[in-house]
């Protein structure tokens, strides 16, 4: 009883002291966000995450005293859904999928850029209007471009090409003839690997999109993405047949078609740069440079040619990127986003060793990048952005149940032996009702 009395008194005392305590937020001078934590969540990890945090801490945090921190996750698509639904979203989420940003806009979780004080005309001048339009919902814009990459690239083993006198193909026919030539000379033409933990199957969707852009064209592509045509429309089925003629052809792919989903996409370029090489060509986006084995020099050991054209006169270029969605509105977060997208910040991020991220800011020049190949690619991307010729990766634009769900698993089942028509039908069936 006595102990109880003392404990109760102690509780009361503590409460009194608490009520009289100081607050320890600092002053509210402009640009001073001392101690404020800003959580940024995204899909890129390891080298690029470290580089981002290095620039953030020596830049924004040092200038304002804030504690902004970037966290990356290999299962970003899954984790961000859980965090948002659980009521604990990050302050800024860097989505590789604009479709998911639109979902958040629809649900009312993401905050419009207009409401945050951004001038859309200024942003369109900085990023081109296509990227901003991807995050547009009911007249307002919800995604701020933070990254862009080029996907219509084919990497190849340069020394072997030069030794055997191969020429880089410009059309699909030239490409398959080249592959047959390689087979005759005893090489395996292609390395394809779509393994990626929970996201297994996504590289195959990139192939499908490249083929769609070069057969059906940009307008049908847009209809495909927005579900104005069904997923198993004849145009899409035709693209599927062309794709199957590459991965299914005898001997074209190292390991055979059914191991494609078992090979991790990060390991899949390794046979191309080995000596003797296991394969000679690998279709992949620009970021793959950071996954090449140590000592591989771009331009010497490997080089790139653009994905060949297929139908006469049908041109297109596939790209991907990130749109940042903002979930909380505070002066610190606004200041952070403004700082993050500025040309200077983007330039210093690009100049970090090992970073493959390309800035969508058209004012960031090719010489900002540590890697010269990335610099060249960035030049062509910013040109495409300014000219409006780029299309965003379709699976990142589609609703997440398809684009990060059935499209991926459908590709895996197809390569493991499932029939193409039924796979595309089941992807079509999985499209959400209101989409």
């Amino acid at each position, binding site marked *: 009883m006595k102990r*109880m009395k003392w*404990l*109760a008194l*102690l*509780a009361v005392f*503590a*409460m009194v*002291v*608490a*009520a*009289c*305590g*100081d*607050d*320890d*937020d600092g002053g509210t001078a402009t640009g001073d966000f001392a101690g404020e934590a800003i959580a940024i969540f995204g899909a890129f990890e390891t080298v690029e995450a470290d580089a981002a945090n290095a620039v953030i801490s020596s830049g924004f945090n040092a200038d304002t005293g804030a504690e902004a921190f970037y966290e990356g996750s290999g299962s970003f698509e*899954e984790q961000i*859904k*859980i965090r948002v639904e659980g009521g604990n979203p990050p302050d800024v989420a860097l989505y590789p999928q604009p479709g998911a940003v639109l979902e958040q806009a629809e649900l009312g979780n993401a905050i419009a850029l207009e409401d945050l004080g951004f001038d859309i005309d200024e942003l369109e001048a900085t990023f081109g209007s296509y990227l901003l339009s991807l995050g547009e919902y009911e007249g307002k814009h919800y995604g701020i471009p933070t990254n862009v990459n080029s996907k219509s690239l084919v990497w190849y083993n340069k020394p072997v090409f030069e030794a055997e006198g191969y020429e880089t193909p410009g059309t699909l026919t030239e490409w398959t003839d080249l592959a047959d030539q390689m087979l005759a000379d005893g090489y395996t033409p292609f390395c394809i*690997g779509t393994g990626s*933990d*929970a996201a*297994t199957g996504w590289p195959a969707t990139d192939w499908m999109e490249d083929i769609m852009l070069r057969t059906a064209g940009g307008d049908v592509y847009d209809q495909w993405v927005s579900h104005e045509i069904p997923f198993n429309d004849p145009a899409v089925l035709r693209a599927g047949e062309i794709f199957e003629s590459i991965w299914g052809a005898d001997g074209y792919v*190292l*390991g055979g078609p*059914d*191991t494609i*989903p*078992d*090979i991790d996409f990060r*390991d*899949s370029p*390794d*046979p191309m740069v*080995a000596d003797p090489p*296991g394969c000679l060509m690998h279709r992949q986006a620009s970021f793959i440079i950071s996954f090449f084995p140590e000592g591989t020099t771009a331009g010497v050991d490997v080089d790139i040619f653009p994905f060949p054209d297929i139908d006469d006169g049908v041109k297109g270029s596939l790209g991907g990127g990130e749109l940042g969605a903002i979930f909380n509105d505070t002066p610190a977060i606004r200041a952070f986003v403004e700082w993050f997208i500025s040309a200077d910040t983007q330039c210093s991020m690009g100049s970090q060793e090992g970073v493959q991220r390309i800035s969508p800011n058209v004012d960031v020049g090719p010489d900002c990048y540590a890697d010269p190949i990335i610099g060249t690619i960035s030049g062509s991307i910013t040109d495409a952005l300014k000219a409006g010729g780029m299309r965003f990766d379709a699976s990142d634009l589609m609703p*997440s*149940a398809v684009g990060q*769900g059935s499209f991926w*698993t459908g590709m*895996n*089942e197809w390569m*493991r032996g499932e029939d193409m028509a039924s796979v595309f039908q089941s992807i079509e069936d*999985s499209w*959400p*009702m209101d989409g």
Partner: protein
Amino acid sequence: MTEPQGTGTTLERRPDELPEGVGARVGLGALRILAAVAVPLLAFIVLWMTFEWLRDADANRGVIVLVAVLVGVVGVFTLYWAMDFMVNRLPARFRESIRPWVFVGPALVILAIFLAYPAINTIYLSFLDARSEGFIGLENYGFVFTDSGMLRAIRNTLGWIIIVPSISVAVGLGFAVLVDKLRRGEAVAKSIIFLPMAVSFVGASIVWSFIYDFKIFGSQTGLLNGIWAGIGNEPVAWLSQEPFNNLLLMVIMVWLQTGFAMVILSAAIKSVPEEIIEAARIDGASEFQVFWRVVMPSIASTLVVVMTTMVITVLKVFDIVWVLTNGETGTEVIAERMIRWFFRNSHNGRGAAIAVVLFLAIIPVMAINVRRFKAEEQIR
């Protein structure tokens, strides 16, 4: 506090002599409910007020934590003490029938809120559509029993609940018997077998994903492929070999759970009286016969406990499948399908229907367990 007695004794009326009459019984029932709800309700009010006040306070963090802990711990303790005091104030004949409700009440309330309500809500959700907006009747259940992925999941789950407990118990029992005969090193041997239980399912899955790893080119990092390729074969993508890959996943579960089976069965075996075993030996039984005819029947009820516990654990398996194969290549199980439909595909109706089916599947197993507990309670 004794009642004044005409007979001169100072005994209180026995607690089980409850007042007669409907009115009194209703009153008693109402008091019980009130007692059960009082502590959690008051605790909630006090804690909520403290939380509201603390949230707006600008004080030093350490002091806020101190206040929170003090109010939380001391406050709740005080509430229990106060309720006990109130119960003591009641007439003697009510006291002992009300008191248990005060102390069990909070647990019942929490169970009702966090267990009963979600269960009922899930059953309700299973009749609605993907966003839980429209009623669609039994469509989700139709899906559960016709979708090819779900049918594979049901087939695989049946495989899991037959194979994993049998093998775990068999291996665990074997170990228990053999380790029992060790003169020295028994504790070390048991610890080694038991160690995997300390690993989380996800941790074990990642460890085993390295063992099953497959590389098309170059040297293998996976142990299994290292051995397989080392003896001259082409490396194999083990986790994609249907339906064999299910067995590979089950191995992981067996590895995790055998220690549990072994420890419990070891205790049961040791509790078989020595005299019976001696008598059997004297009667000329071989070791084998001693084991099967004497020891096994004695530990039969423990075996049932272990088996049912393992079946319940296996019915919940999802992380092993999720991490290793992402539910592809024919390795689906019911719990993994539920998570997939709820969280990946955001389809509340189907996820709920699968959850209900899983719930119904567990009921018979729980019934066996409960029956046995009741039987043991009779023996006491």
